[in-house]
């Protein structure tokens, strides 16, 4: 893979802009100031990302040395096709959820005041993860992300939110320290932190094996792969709606991105045999278990959260088939399509719950004022999650199916299809309830248009990502292969 060192600061700006926006929204928490800050921050970030994407498109991979200091003491930012796609997903979801939040928190001055700085810190942490070029910097950015997201979960107050925030925090800290211990061991053996350089020197010795087990286990706890998923459903269900969307769509993807990055760039020598197979098995159990648990939920947000447990499972089917480029594309596509579709589904579910004043799936029958846009968004996102064409989830699952046939591991195909059927099983009853006419309709609260628009835009994008799959896929073909 070719790589150039750039002096254009586009990658650094992707971290600086959210941090500046966080500071600005803390110092000037008035509505007009917030509008001005986001009117500057989002276009500026989009512009930097576009230029960064152009550089990656032209030269394969881009490295930027912050302050001109090279590794090991300096910090390198690194971007390739994978980082660019994750950054695009992040900015799109963050923008849509920001629009949603500006309506969601209106009238709640105190929460709004704490929400915006934390939200921007979360965005900065996510961008930092996707741009880090060394394993230690990844630890720091992960911690920024975790503290911001735990604070956002607990924002709502109340036992449920505090409890799940605290539990998520403890699991995350455990994961982070386990990861850091692994990094320390790698540094002790090889004296390198840079991901690319580590990949060239690492060998199958015991220290590296222990380090990899510590790193991967720590990250699995943060990604919520079965059986370490126990903290996820309640944390994602009890957070404020836009936060749930970001947590499910983005925050669990960041540690997964690190596993994927290390697996393809560093652990490529098959240092631990059968580790890939084990991750594949855990992923399969997650797909089935998450699906079955989602079927049994009576509350809408819990159902959507358990669906995340199931959809995360698909990501891990890549590891047993790691040699196949189809599996890689399928896995990345799954991360992107789930990101857009699940964010849209959480926002749409939030609208339905706001209209009804209840989050029981049973009560959806009483929905008088139809909320056509949100219902449509929920349906479109569902199409992608079930893996039906033309949703982006279809491309992801199709690539994974293709890979499982090509590599002769047909048993994963059964899991992929079963997971799709389960998704249909838990999503159709919800849609049926929304659409069906009730005997005694209840009074519904009004939902602002902006909140519905945010949901539908993400749902449509998840469809566009499925139809125009050629563009992101070719970014990979030029960048990675």
């Amino acid at each position, binding site marked *: 893979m070719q790589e150039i060192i750039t002096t254009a600061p586009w990658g650094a700006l992707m971290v600086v802009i959210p941090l500046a926006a966080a500071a600005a929204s803390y110092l000037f928490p008035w509505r007009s100031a917030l509008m001005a800050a986001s009117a500057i921050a989002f276009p500026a970030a989009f512009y930097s990302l576009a230029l960064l994407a152009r550089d990656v498109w032209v030269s394969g991979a881009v490295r930027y040395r912050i302050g001109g200091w090279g590794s090991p003491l300096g910090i390198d930012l690194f971007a390739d096709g994978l980082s660019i796609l994750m950054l695009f997903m992040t900015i799109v979801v963050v923008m849509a959820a920001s629009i949603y939040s500006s309506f969601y928190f209106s009238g709640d001055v105190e929460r709004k005041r704490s929400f915006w700085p934390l939200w921007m810190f979360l965005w900065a942490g996510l961008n930092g993860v996707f741009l880090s070029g060394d394993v230690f910097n990844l630890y720091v950015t992960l911690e920024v992300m975790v503290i911001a997201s735990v604070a956002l979960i607990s924002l709502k*107050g109340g036992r449920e939110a505090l409890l799940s925030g605290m539990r998520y925090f403890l699991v995350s800290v455990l994961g982070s*320290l386990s990861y*850091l211990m692994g990094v320390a061991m790698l*540094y002790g053996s090889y004296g390198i932190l840079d991901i690319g350089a580590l990949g060239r020197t690492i060998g199958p010795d015991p220290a590296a094996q222990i380090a990899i087990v510590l790193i991967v286990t720590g990250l699995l706890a943060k990604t919520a792969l079965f059986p370490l998923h126990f903290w996820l459903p309640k944390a994602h269900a009890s957070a404020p709606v836009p936060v749930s969307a970001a947590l499910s769509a983005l925050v669990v993807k960041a540690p997964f991105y690190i596993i994927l990055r290390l697996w393809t760039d560093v652990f490529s020598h098959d240092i631990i045999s059968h580790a890939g197979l084990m991750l594949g098995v855990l992923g399969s159990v997650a797909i089935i278990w998450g699906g079955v648990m989602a079927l049994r939920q009576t509350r809408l947000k819990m159902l959507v959260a358990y669906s995340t447990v199931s959809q995360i499972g698909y990501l891990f089917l890549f590891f047993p088939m790691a040699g196949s480029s189809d599996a890689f594309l399928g896995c990345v596509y799954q991360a992107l399509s789930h990101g857009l579709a699940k964010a849209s589904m959480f926002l749409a579910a939030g609208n339905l719950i706001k209209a009804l004043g209840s989050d029981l799936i049973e009560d959806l029958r009483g929905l008088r004022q139809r909320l056509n846009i949100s219902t449509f968004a929920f349906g479109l996102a569902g199409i992608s999650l079930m893996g039906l064409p033309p949703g982006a989830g279809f491309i992801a699952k199709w690539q994974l199916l293709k890979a499982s046939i090509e590599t002769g591991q047909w048993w994963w195909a059964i899991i992929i299809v079963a997971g799709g059927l389960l998704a249909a099983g838990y999503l159709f009853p919800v849609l049926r309830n929304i659409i069906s006419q009730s005997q005694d309709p209840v009074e519904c609260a009004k939902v602002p248009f902006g909140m519905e628009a945010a949901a539908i835009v993400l749902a449509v994008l998840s469809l566009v990502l499925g139809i125009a799959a050629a563009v992101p896929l070719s970014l990979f073909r030029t960048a990675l292969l």
Partner: protein
Amino acid sequence: MTQEIIYSIGGVLLFCIGLYGLIACEHLFRKILSFNIMGGGVFLFLVSIALNGDNTPDPVPHAMVLTGIVVTVSATAFALALLRRINSGTGAETLGRLEQDASDLDG
């Protein structure tokens, strides 16, 4: 040489003690203390790596430890604030208690 090994083993032991405490202790304050012990173990391990026999220690692990301490201090401060909020709001000091109360409220 022996000094390095003693520090490394000490670091790994602290890490394991902290890990045990984080999983086994019920009280949230003990859990917060435990992850600090875990962190201390990692930092001691990193410092032992920096001693490479020469008179000039490797600066990179030192930089990592300093950064790590900053991160751990902020995480601890945040966890303590969250614990205070939990305790003043609900009177609970363990996750089990809090969960029980939450399900009582549901039922």
